[in-house]
């Protein structure tokens, strides 16, 4: 009980510190202004949600393999937390998109695959309520959970594989690669234009 209370307190303090960082430490964005700060909650929720679904997927596989109820309990717990965090993502995304893009929603690859992911895990939880017998419920929901996880790599890869309205990665090594790639592309385009004009 003590360790759980401590973890809870640490989690709450970290979220408060993250909110402080997002509102008071992070610099002002030049074009988007205040609204871009929602992005710190949006990205955090998206990553945590996908990782929770990964935990659910691993436990589903373990249940199918070993048939121990504890794996099913962890899987359903992770699915519920992942679903809650994905709901946060689907709410904060349009709040940011409306002033920046001028629209609440568009059916691009990233947004659509995230919405499908949300629907799949709602179905996963609904399926569990429809089956009374515990072993049968655990097995069928595990099989469905393994299928549902197939959408997570699509969500992750959507902004890397296809042209989307959703922004590309903005932090880390990939963002640096993205910036260099875009600079290279724009340089080549400008050279092509110059060559055509001359």
């Amino acid at each position, binding site marked *: 009980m003590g360790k*759980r209370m401590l*973890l*809870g307190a*640490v*989690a*709450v303090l*970290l*979220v408060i*510190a*993250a909110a402080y*960082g*997002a509102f008071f*430490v*992070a*610099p002002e964005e030049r074009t988007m202004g205040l609204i871009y700060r929602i*992005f*710190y*909650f949006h*990205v*955090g*929720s998206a*990553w*945590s*949600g996908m*990782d*929770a679904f990964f*935990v659910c997927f691993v436990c589903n596989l373990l249940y199918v393999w070993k048939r121990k*109820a*504890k794996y099913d*309990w*962890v899987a*359903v*717990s*992770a699915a*519920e*937390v*992942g679903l*809650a*965090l994905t709901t946060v993502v689907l709410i904060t995304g349009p709040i940011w998109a409306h002033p920046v893009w001028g629209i609440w929603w568009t059916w691009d690859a990233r947004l659509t695959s995230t919405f499908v992911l949300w629907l799949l895990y709602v179905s996963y939880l609904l399926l569990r309520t429809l089956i009374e017998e*515990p072993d049968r419920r655990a097995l069928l929901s595990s099989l469905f959970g393994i299928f549902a996880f197939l959408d997570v790599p699509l969500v992750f890869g959507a902004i890397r594989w296809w042209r989307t309205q959703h922004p590309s990665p*903005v*932090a*880390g090594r990939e963002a640096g690669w993205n910036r260099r790639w875009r600079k290279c592309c724009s340089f080549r385009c400008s050279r092509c234009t110059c060559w055509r004009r001359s």
Partner: protein
Amino acid sequence: MEKVLFFSVFAMHVLAAFLIIERYILEKMRNEVDVLQREVEAL
């Protein structure tokens, strides 16, 4: 900007881990109650 972003991602992960553990304990207790209930009904 990147440091704040990574920190917020880390904070959300800790929160998610805490929620999963709490929900797991609840699920475990619920199943134990179900088993006891079935045993009482069988008696």
